[in-house]
């Protein structure tokens, strides 16, 4: 369920947050704004229902509460149902962070009180009547910062395995307005058993399952086994694209847009052989053994098959149009691998009820050897930088398409630092030498044009690391912050961590000519929130980043309740992600805040504060 669209600034923000807290969080219609919290409706004496509704007096609506120095909120307790035998009123109020707020009685009536609203944020007002604590009421009132900017975040709730399913909610916060008392009621969802069976034998078969929420980024994965019982996956409401990839020679299956109820009532997933696709992989010397062939239509693959000695293969796929990929470890050139891809257009048509043919022809090429001398302890990765067009052809339906091809590999030098890779197609290659990251050498790249035959040995001079520097702001709070530059160039996972010095200054030694994303992670006792600096390229001489403002931390606290709306959901992982649509969102897949709920379901998060407009 999505939060309502952004309204105008000003007093209406208050209504927005109140609406968020209730409508977003309670799919079952359970009031979650705390108007008569669960501890408020329990009744007085045995069997007697009794609660206190907390109503606004001044201002006349909770939606128009504005914080200001000297501002006060006056509320009236309205007792419903038979009151307890002795009527005494006990009021209390807390600010968003749990600090007490003084409540004073107005006049002679103990049901009329007021409290100061001198700073923006949420105020939780509670009242008990009768002194037994069983006839009570609670109300969460938000006094929004009228100049606060709005920001939406995606909250993900992952209860423990015995709880409700993992689920996402989009919620909105207001800059400069800390809130507590937020109540999120989880969707019960449905437990769906997955029983994957071979349609031919009727026997259970092992399969990998991936269910993707097309409306969001929620992915639920699982695996069935051939021997075990059906796997049970807890799914929230919504629709899912269900990918089933059997382990054996059975065609994978994609079931788009399935509701959990559809899946639960569908019975066993019968997995057929699919449509056969047969062919051969040949090169100039004849049949090619050991080549892997696979088809892919978007997220749906075929079976993966490896050619035998005669170069023949038969794979299976659901009917459709596919891209095709062949990979082949180049003989005599270990660890080099040739990869060629027939793009989805025109692709390969796999008809229903027929046999598709696919022949793959690997052309002849002149071989060359890569000879390098590098530092001991390094790793050497290489990949053809020029497309080996024309090297591989895919023939289907009588038509031959030339595919884009590349050769890549990775090797560790022998004891003296020598690297020799024979048997490569003569072409241009990009070589990347990866040193021990703890040293001063940088990841060093070089372009090598390999002519046919034995190329002369080339000594690789390692580049030095360069400085990635900058300042985090506000400087007064930005000292001692952990930060990590994650290498997002793509060829290998690599990261460099450090910590800001005084005034938020930092300098990391990184490799030049590579792309990085900077993850900034203040500790919980710092007043700032985690953030990510969007990818940037570090040049040959290093990079001095412009000052990076780290958002202030904005309190967002509350309670996660299970689907009953009565019980807290303990040990529930709460993760908050920025929305990819937000301009400031550099990484929608990394939480900007996360925590685990306490035994009563309560939680406290520090979100990036969207700030206020001056």
């Amino acid at each position: 369920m999505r939060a309502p669209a952004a309204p105008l600034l000003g007093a209406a923000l208050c209504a927005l947050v109140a609406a968020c807290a209730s409508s977003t969080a309670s799919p079952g219609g359970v009031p979650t704004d705390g108007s008569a919290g669960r501890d408020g409706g329990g009744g007085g004496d045995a069997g007697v229902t009794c609660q206190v509704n907390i109503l606004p007096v001044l201002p006349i609506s909770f939606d128009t509460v504005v914080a200001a120095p000297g501002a006060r909120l006056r509320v009236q307790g309205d007792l419903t149902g038979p009151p307890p035998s002795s009527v005494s009123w006990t009021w209390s109020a807390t600010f968003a962070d749990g600090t007490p707020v003084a409540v004073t009685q107005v006049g002679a009536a103990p049901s009329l009180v007021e409290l100061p609203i001198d700073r923006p944020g949420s105020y939780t007002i509670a009242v008990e009547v009768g002194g037994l604590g069983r006839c009570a009421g609670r109300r969460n009132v938000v006094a929004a910062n009228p100049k606060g900017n709005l920001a939406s975040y995606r909250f993900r709730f992952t209860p423990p395995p015995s709880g409700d399913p993992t689920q996402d909610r989009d919620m909105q916060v207001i800059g400069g307005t800390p809130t507590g008392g937020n109540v999120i009621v989880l969707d019960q969802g449905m437990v769906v058993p997955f029983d994957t069976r071979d349609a031919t034998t009727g026997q259970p078969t092992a399969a990998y399952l991936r269910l993707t929420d097309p409306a969001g980024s929620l992915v639920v994965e699982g695996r069935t086994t051939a021997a075990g019982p059906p796997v049970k996956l807890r799914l929230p409401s919504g629709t899912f694209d269900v990918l089933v990839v059997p382990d054996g020679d059975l065609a994978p299956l994609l079931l788009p847009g399935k509701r959990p109820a559809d899946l639960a009532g569908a019975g066993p997933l019968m997995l057929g052989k699919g449509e056969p696709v047969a062919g051969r992989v040949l090169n100039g010397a004849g049949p090619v053994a050991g080549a892997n062939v696979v088809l892919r239509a978007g997220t749906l693959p075929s079976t993966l098959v490896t050619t035998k000695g005669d170069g023949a293969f038969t794979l299976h796929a659901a009917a459709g149009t596919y891209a095709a990929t062949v990979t082949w470890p180049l003989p005599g050139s270990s660890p080099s691998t040739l990869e060629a891809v027939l793009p989805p257009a025109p692709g390969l048509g796999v008809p229903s009820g027929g046999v598709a043919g696919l022949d793959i022809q690997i052309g002849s090429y002149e071989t060359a050897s890569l000879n390098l001398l590098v530092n001991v302890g390094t790793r050497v990765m290489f990949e053809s930088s020029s497309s080996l067009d024309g090297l591989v052809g895919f023939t289907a339906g009588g038509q031959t398409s030339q595919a884009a091809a590349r050769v890549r590999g990775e090797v560790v030098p022998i004891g003296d630092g020598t690297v020799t890779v024979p048997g490569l197609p003569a072409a241009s290659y990009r070589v990347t030498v990866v040193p021990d990251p703890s040293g001063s050498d940088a990841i060093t790249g070089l372009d090598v044009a390999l002519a046919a035959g034995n190329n002369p040995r080339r000594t690789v001079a390692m580049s030095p690391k360069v400085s990635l520097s900058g300042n985090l702001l506000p400087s007064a709070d930005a000292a001692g912050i952990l930060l990590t530059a994650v290498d997002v160039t793509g060829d290998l996972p690599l990261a460099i961590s450090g910590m800001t010095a005084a005034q938020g200054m930092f300098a990391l030694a990184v490799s030049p000519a590579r792309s990085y994303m900077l993850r900034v992670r203040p500790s919980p006792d710092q007043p700032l929130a985690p953030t990510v600096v969007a990818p940037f390229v570090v040049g040959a001489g290093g990079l001095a980043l412009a000052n990076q403002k780290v958002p202030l931390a904005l309190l967002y606290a509350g309670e996660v309740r299970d689907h009953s709306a009565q019980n807290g959901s303990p040990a529930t992982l709460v993760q908050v992600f920025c929305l990819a649509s937000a301009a400031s969102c550099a990484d929608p897949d990394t939480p900007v805040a996360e925590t685990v709920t306490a035994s009563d379901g309560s939680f406290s998060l520090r979100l990036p504060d969207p700030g206020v407009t001056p």
Partner: protein
Amino acid sequence: MAFALHMRNGRKRGGRPGVAPPPVSQMLSTISSSAVLVLLCAGACLVQACYLGRINNKPTVQIHVPGEHFARGQTVEVTATGKDPDNDSVHWAWYVIPGPCAATLDPTALPSSRQQLMFDFVVPLDASTSCVWVMVTDVDGASDTASATISTVNRPPTAVISVSKPSGTNQFGRYDLYSRFDLSSVGSSDADGDAIVKRTWTPSFPPTAGALVPCSTTPPADQEVCFDAGNVPGDYVVSLVLNDGTDDSAPAQVRLTVDPDHPPCISDTDPLLIASPIVVDPAADETFKVQGVLDDGSPYPAPTDGRPYVPISFAWSMRRNGGAWVDLTGFDQLNKATLAGGSSLSGDVVDVRVTVSDGVAFHPTASCDAMCPTGCPTTATWTVRYR
């Protein structure tokens, strides 16, 4: 009871209520038998003039108190027994006079109760002595009194120590290392309602442990005390003695056993390990995340309640097609690692492994958090089949 029987029998002789008996009657007042009285009277008439009216005998009463010292506010059931030799109907009156009992009842005193046989005396809340009198008066106005002194005694307060923080023990009934304790005396009481004027906390801690200090400077500062177990396991014993200005309480004591460092465990991953081997498009990014680590000092996500925390470290590595494991450097502070799309080929089988560490080299106990998966895994391994 004699008076009760008499009341049931009713009045048996004539007489004038309120008229004092003549001297002869007083002389014979100890003779209780009517028959003897008649004979004696007849004999006397032979000698001199004889008084033939009623001879009244005064009632007698005794008071009974179940002890001498009583708690303030306590209700003491004071009883009385007595006789009226004439079986006359009698009136009861109970009096409470401050101070020790005097020789005689103050004639100006007003009765507190006219209940028969029994009086519920509520001991004053202040430390004091009272005298309870009982007077019985028969229909002729003859009376008798009895008294008892009742003194209050101070009851010492009762010390109770409650552990406000942490909110509970671990699954072993003990506390995790790095716990911060908040001990409260608010559950203590004084049966007399006396204010507690002093709280004496006495720690008995392991040698290198920290100190027991007031949690707050707000008076009464000694109402709650705090200490930080830090990295020192062992038994932390805290005693509390209260004083109400008169007496000390019996000591209350709590023993808080702090476990040695527990090993961490990986409690949640994304993808789930049970989904492995995972089938992935070689062109797609695949991210592996540790979403939960259960540990006493280094949980993940980091705690938000302000307790001591040392970030857990992650050691990531991967191998391709059964080759050697290669460390993914620089990810030791990151709970996730991403294999970028395009870095693998169809047919590749890649294993990704992560091991978490709380920085403690040796864990003397094998126990980990109760929520940990079986075996307290510190390592998670995913297998990816690129297709």
